[in-house]
């Protein structure tokens, strides 16, 4: 089997001609794990030489088994974690810290408990200095978008997990980032809500031309949303293969798309890559049970 350590050499797919928006260039990250009982701290390599591009207006999904470093990579891109080696480039410029050109949807909604749903959505806008009236207006329309009109004045502890996740989504949308980083944003939702929000995400993305890097465990979701899928191997995390999803956009709904033979083919192929990624490349890194 071929292992692509370098970025996909030949750009393919319908988005191939677009300029690169986000470039992940040979990014490596090692955590120092504190040694137990006087043992020296041991290095634990989470990402090794990871490289891929996301082009303007693309949705790219990261898939890979649990613990392969997807969240870590997203946090590095956002500037929440430092990288050890490599570069993150946005529009060709290296980024070194957080910026409002990138928005983040957390795996756990991470709402601020002292703010109501609407106030949480307004958080980023407040920091940008958007006037109050405009903030309220925007929060209202975003609440509508994620189907939470009635919850504007509720506090996070009064919301279900799925509702909190939707508020987190709206909070990231609010600042209209050029790049949106989403860490399994729909995994906590029920199937119905998930489908609605997937469709909405595609619609919003088509409207705003946002560039999205999307982490998911759900291969159907990855195929449905993405222009390309980056399949990761684990321990240490690295790019295994980049898979094109050739369905043109706007796309048919997922249930219809699912019945296409091409869908099945991609799904099978991706699943295989992830499965194989688990079996060793010898001595790739430290053993660590996920």
């Amino acid at each position: 089997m071929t292992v692509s350590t370098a970025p996909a050499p030949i750009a393919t797919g319908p988005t191939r001609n677009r300029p690169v928006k986000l470039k992940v260039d040979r990014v490596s990250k090692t955590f120092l794990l504190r040694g137990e009982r006087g043992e020296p701290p041991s290095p634990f390599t989470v990402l090794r030489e990871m490289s891929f591009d996301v082009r303007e207006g693309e949705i790219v999904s990261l898939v890979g088994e649990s613990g392969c470093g997807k969240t870590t990579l997203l946090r590095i891109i956002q500037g929440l974690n430092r990288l050890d080696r490599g570069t993150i480039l946005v529009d060709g410029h290296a980024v070194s810290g957080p910026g409002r050109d990138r928005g983040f949807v957390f795996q756990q909604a991470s709402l601020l408990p002292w703010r109501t749903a609407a106030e949480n959505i307004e958080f980023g806008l407040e920091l940008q200095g958007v006037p109050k009236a405009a903030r309220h207006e925007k929060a209202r329309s975003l609440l509508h978008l994620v189907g939470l009109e009635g919850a504007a004045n509720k506090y996070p502890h009064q919301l279900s997990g799925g509702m909190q996740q939707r508020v987190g989504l709206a909070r990231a949308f609010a600042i209209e980032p050029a790049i949106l980083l989403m860490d399994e944003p729909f995994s906590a939702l029920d199937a119905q809500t998930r489908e609605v929000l997937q469709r909405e995400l595609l619609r919003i993305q088509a409207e705003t031309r946002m560039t999205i890097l999307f982490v998911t465990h759900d291969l159907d979701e990855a195929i449905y949303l993405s222009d390309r899928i980056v399949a990761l191997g684990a321990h240490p995390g690295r790019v295994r293969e980049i898979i094109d999803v050739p369905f043109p956009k706007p796309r048919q709904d997922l249930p219809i798309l699912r019945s296409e033979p091409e869908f099945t083919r991609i799904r099978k192929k991706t699943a295989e890559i992830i499965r194989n990624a688990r079996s060793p490349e010898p001595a790739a890194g430290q053993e660590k049970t996920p």
Partner: protein
Amino acid sequence: MTTVAEPHRAQPDDDATDPQLEAIGPVVEKDRAALIRTISIVVVLGLWEVLGRQVNPLLLSYPSKILQALWSMMLSGEIFQAILESGKTLLLGFLLATVIGVALGLLIGRYRSVEAATDWLVNALYATPLVAIVPLVTLWFGLGFSAKLFIVCIIAVFPILINTASGVRNVSSSFIDVGRAFAATERETFVKIIMPAALPYVMTGLRLGIGRCIIGMVVAEFYTAVGGLGALIMKYGNQYDTAAMFVPILTLALIGVLLTALVRRAELYFAPWKAN
């Protein structure tokens, strides 16, 4: 649902999470607790009244006699004057302790260097029973109002400061991450993330501080210039008028209970998500 006019548009998720609905059980429970408490109060006061009459009036008084003493002190205005005087010391001292304690606590909790510079002193002073320095304080400030103020303030400031600092240290890193993800500046992080996240701890500090304020106030009034409720206790103690002595003592208890309840209410108001 679809035809309901806009202002009445029901909140679709109400039934799932409305705290009002959950509260029905606890409300009944609360009523029961209140009933038991009332009975307990009546029984204890009754016993006190009966037994108190059997004992040497120098050692213990009883409720009806204390009420008489209260009445005469109200007529003379003595009790009101004492409450006013003590209240002045108490509130000003508490306010000062809050401002200093919260401000220092925020800095100590947030900045390692400030912590390193001050923690030994804070810990030492917190551990010292500060009543011990009262004679020293009277040397510094004399016997006037400022001495009382200083004592009340220094006794209350440490629980407020220490709780505030630990509140800041305990702010969940995921909240900090949210701030950073939205590129908040240090100042914005402080104001919009750290301060609200630490608020419940601050309120706990204030509640502890209030109790200590009252202790500090009484001690200060014992040792410094005559005045306030503490002085009343001394005065009637010296006169062996035990019933009258109970009046300021019970007044102090009442003030303590009321102020603590007030801070608790404020806690619920400012940190509703910590309510349960």
